[in-house]
């Protein structure tokens, strides 16, 4: 996401221009839908989550402060928290432990696979699964580090270090080739 486009969207949001939602959808819907799906693990629920998240984004547009968070961070927080709430309120909560152990990105929305992201998925697979499990538990399953430590039976210190190392690994993988790849996709 170019800083220029991001600034433009933020301006539109603050002006309460509906075009902002359209642009946000074009640029972030796939990622946010993926996040919602990863949390609720159900297509219908994920769609509901995405709708509700966008309504919240629109309602809270005035409160977004670019100095406190990047646009994506803000969108992610809203979507993630909406998804976690949805999951809690829907009684279809499935067994968390099993889901965690077998979590496999290829199982996610097979029909909706976006070829643009396949390279990234492959990259993600390169991260040691021990990091991936921790990151997913914290980011998508709404667990605190303490909860993740208990659920995954990993000491809290290890959770913390795996989170940090995992994120660093991600950075190594993505920062150079992915940024280039993204720029290329954007230009194309």
């Amino acid at each position, binding site marked *: *996401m170019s800083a220029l486009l991001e600034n433009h969207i933020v301006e539109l949001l603050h002006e*309460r221009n*509906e075009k902002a*939602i*359209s642009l946000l*959808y074009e640029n972030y*819907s*796939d*990622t*946010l*839908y*993926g*996040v919602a*799906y*990863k949390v609720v693990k159900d*297509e219908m629920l994920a*769609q509901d989550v*995405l*709708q509700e998240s*966008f*309504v919240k984004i*629109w*309602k809270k547009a005035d409160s977004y402060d670019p100095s*406190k*968070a*990047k646009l*994506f*961070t803000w969108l*992610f*927080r809203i979507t*993630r*928290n909406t998804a976690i709430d949805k999951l809690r309120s829907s009684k279809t909560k499935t067994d968390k432990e099993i889901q965690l152990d077998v979590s496999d*990105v290829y199982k*996610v*929305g097979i029909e*909706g*696979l*976006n070829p*643009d*992201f396949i390279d*990234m*998925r492959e*990259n*993600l697979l390169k991260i040691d699964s021990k990091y991936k499990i921790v*990151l997913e538990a*914290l*980011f*998508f399953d*709404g667990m*605190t*580090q303490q909860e993740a430590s208990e659920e995954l039976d990993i000491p809290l210190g290890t959770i*913390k270090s795996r*989170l940090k190392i995992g*994120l*660093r690994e*991600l*950075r190594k993988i*993505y*920062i150079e080739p*992915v940024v280039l790849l993204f720029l290329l996709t954007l230009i194309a």
Partner: protein
Amino acid sequence: MKEKIKLFLDTDLLEKYLLGATTDLETLQVERYIAMYPEVRKTYNELQENLEEFAKSYAVKAPEGLKEQILSRVKAQNSTRRKFMSYAVAASVVALLFASASYFFYNQNLNLQEENSMVTNQIKLLEADMKERLEDVRNQFIVLNNPDTKQYKLKGNKKAKDLKAVAYVNPVKKLSYINVQNLPHLEEGQYLQMWAEVNGKMLNLGILKDAGSKDNLLAIPYSEDAVGYITIENEGSNETPTVENIVANITF
């Protein structure tokens, strides 16, 4: 200081903040650290970038038609917001009207209360006045009706031919009154003044005014063997009667 930052980064507060999972108090603390320490800020920014990359790797093509649904919901939201705004405006107008009406009635009520107390006061004054007058009239009637009361008719001399007055004197009750029936025409600056000679001294009994004095009895201090005079005087207070201007006298 370094130690403090390290300790902070070792907690999971920054990660929790990244995900929007901190409590209000924790949020304040994290935001303070981000604002104060460049190292924390740098780590936070890295975390944000990593989060975006990490989340993107889970991207799934959103179903067709979802965009339209979302846009129409946002539009509906907007129109209800607008509707709400217009309701809010209407409500404000009503509230304002109500407030000004209340103020108006409050003011009116205040004015009426004031007026009411004024009227009540006036009625009280009138009542007191009436009582006083009634008492006067009663007293006068008692005097006039008393068989001991003598009536003296007074007429002006040639200086004041039109002067007509009646004096009532009751030596038993030691009361005397004078009733001026008609005043002579006087030149401007002149008026009639009453006097009484009591024990060789001239007492000023006041000026005779034509207005309203016709039906009134003027009380005169009673003294045996007193002589009353009416003189024409010039404007300005006169302590002694002008003898050559005597127009009438009464000997009680």
